[in-house]
């Protein structure tokens, strides 16, 4: 079904086909302010240059504002403290194929994710559920600081 740009609640320009990457490790709404054609994000990931948005076929900006990380996202969570084991993932949410486009997955694979418990190199398994990418580290308050050129805000 086609997506109509220009008429509706959310962005009406190219933003209707873009999304921030949501930070699944943070609780609370990622939205600080919203209205017709206006969205301000409280937290997520953005590039240090440019606007930080990525292309998406799923849950474009206009549909994201009420549901945290209901779109492209990354999540790091501890599984077991001993042995230390955690999981790094980009969850599927409503999509059967994942929320980050294939070409963006290719660019993000191999990038370094800086976490509270240390750093990992993102593998392709981070985008494949239900097991995603596991790594041998653990923090009770695991958060993602940066992912390659993306910085948490």
């Amino acid at each position, binding site marked *: 079904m086609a997506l109509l*740009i*220009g008429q509706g609640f959310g*962005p*009406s*320009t*190219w*933003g209707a086909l873009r999304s*921030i990457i949501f930070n699944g490790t943070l609780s609370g709404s990622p939205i*600080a*302010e*919203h*209205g*017709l*054609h*206006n*969205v*301000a*994000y*409280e*937290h*997520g990931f*953005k590039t240090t240059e440019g*606007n*930080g*948005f990525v292309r998406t076929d799923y849950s474009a*900006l206009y549909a994201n504002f009420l549901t945290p990380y209901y779109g492209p996202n990354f999540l790091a969570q501890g599984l077991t403290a001993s042995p230390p084991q955690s999981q790094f993932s980009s969850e599927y949410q409503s999509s059967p194929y994942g929320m980050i486009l294939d070409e963006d997955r290719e660019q993000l694979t191999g990038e370094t994710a800086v976490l509270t418990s240390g750093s990992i190199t993102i593998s392709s398994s981070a985008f494949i559920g239900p097991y995603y990418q596991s790594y041998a580290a653990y923090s009770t308050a695991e958060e993602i600081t940066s992912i390659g050129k993306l910085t948490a*805000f």
Partner: protein
Amino acid sequence: MRFQVQSGVVNNIVPTMNDVATSTQVKLDRVTDGVADPPTEELESTNYNSTTKTSYIVMRAGPDATTGDFPSSDDTSNRYPQIIGGNEPIPVDIDTYGFVIIGTITVDNTTTPTALTVIQNVTGSLWGDRLKTGDDTARYYYARI
């Protein structure tokens, strides 16, 4: 030198412009006695860059302070879409409102212009979005309809 702007809309809202005759903000689609009567604005010699002799005509718009809608539909607010002439340099965007250039006017002489060049960057209506991430200044994006 005086100028007018052809009426259009941004997100279905008609902008206003100062009418030099009354010094009031008037919507671009004003009709008087059944005839189009858009406001007329005036450029002073100080409204041009002294070197390039160019003046920017911009539209200013910001989100409604209460509803968050962009742009504000309250025509008494400074966030309501407003055409502003005589800008030099181009104003800088802030969270309260942003600017888009709709045209430039370049003259041969800023005091007593006898020849001018008009460039229209916007020739129709617009859709606009305001997007903000974290503490960064809001960004304003426009698409021609």
